[in-house]
């Protein structure tokens, strides 16, 4: 078995103590996005506007993921281990695979607990990929 989620989490936390240059990667991306949207986009030919919007969207997703990916992985690991208390030695990928098979076989057809785990995980991923969609969706 490879590095477990907990090992990886400790490794990241240790690395935080290493000296990092400022501003952070997230700050750099957000500043670059602001420049793109506010100054470059208005002066971009129509034929390239869609490309520029895709670039700024990709950078915005990456910035949010930099900020939230550790929390996402920790929350997912915690949810999955709650569903499978006898499989705490398995990593996230393995538990996701087991959960997928169990759902496919009908083991969780009436499970509010599984539905709730899936909803929470998808909400967290959507916070990264498209938070505006989440806001629109929850307000309807």
């Amino acid at each position: 078995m490879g590095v477990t989620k907990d090992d990886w989490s400790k490794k990241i936390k240790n690395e935080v103590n290493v000296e990092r240059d400022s501003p952070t990667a997230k700050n750099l991306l957000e500043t670059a996005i602001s420049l793109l949207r506010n100054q470059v986009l208005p002066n971009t030919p129509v034929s390239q506007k869609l490309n520029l919007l895709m670039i700024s969207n990709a950078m915005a997703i990456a910035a949010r993921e930099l900020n939230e990916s550790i929390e996402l992985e920790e929350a997912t690991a915690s949810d999955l281990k709650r569903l499978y208390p006898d499989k705490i030695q398995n990593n996230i990928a393995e538990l996701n695979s087991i959960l997928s098979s169990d759902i496919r076989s009908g083991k969780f057809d009436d499970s509010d607990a599984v539905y709730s785990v899936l909803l929470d995980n998808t909400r967290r991923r959507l916070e990264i990929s498209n938070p505006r969609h989440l806001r629109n969706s929850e307000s309807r």
Partner: protein
Amino acid sequence: MALGLEKLSGFLSEKAQADCCRIMHFEKMSGGAIQENYALDVVFEGGLLNGSHELVLRTDAPSLVEVSHTRAQEFELLRKAYEAGVMVPEPLWVCLDPSIFERPFYIMRRVKGVAEGHILVKDEAIKTNAEGLLEHLGVQLAKIHSITPESHTFDFLAAPNPTPAIAGVEFFRKCLDRLPGAHPTIEWGLRWLELNSPENVTLVLNHRDYRIGNLMLDNGVLTGILDWEFADWSDYHEDIGWFCARCWRFGNFSLEAGGIGSREAFYRGYTDISGRSIDPAQAFYWEVFAHMRWAVIAIQQGERHVTGGEESLHLALTGRVCAELEWELLRMTGPKKLKTR
């Protein structure tokens, strides 16, 4: 490409029985992750089409999605739809000889207008007559659905077994099993689709990508129904669900028919011509199915970028659409909505 165009002009000239064909303009059109379209302006001297014509050459992109039809098959579908009175660009000729343009292609007439969904849902000309347009789009869909297994045979289309919905679920599972990683939320949606699949099935030819974005509209008027590469036999509610699914409303979520107007207008146009009634429960089922199908395609598109050797920001971002589709799937399929067998 000069040599290619000489051969192409020879092909066109022969098909139009013209003395000669001059290609005045030839340019790749935007869009099309699976197919490539080229705008083609030609002048025929003599023959069946003497004079100037605006045409489109449609061919495969270098990378194919396995579920889409070949150009020859798509041409056949387009021809049958045209004969059934469906508003499609008139298909003219198909060419399977790779020496003409390296890949098989077909030629159709070029229709005017815009087919970008995000632009069309804000279009003022559409807003002023959205209900009339939607009725017309319902009528057009009914005409497509007038093509049935009883009236037509296509060598490359087989009746889905055991039902279109279950065949779809099995196909999606096979797709997932070939992709890296696990997708528990997609599996949840597939299980719901399996348990809730409709028992009553009326097979008709479904376009299977009938939505704003594949309909060419000029000043609020339909000029052509495009992109027939996924057409297949299915229950008639599949196209209705695809058109009305929330994921194809381009942000205009309250306008349930394609993000441009009311579901009632679209349904009215459809039922008046087809004589079929629309079952709300079946329409809902196929809206869930639409989100699933789009989610599986989105995962596949993302993988084309990540592992398929096709570096593309457009494909990469399509992969990230999956989270919102999964979110919608979950909102439509809570555990209380599961039926037991």
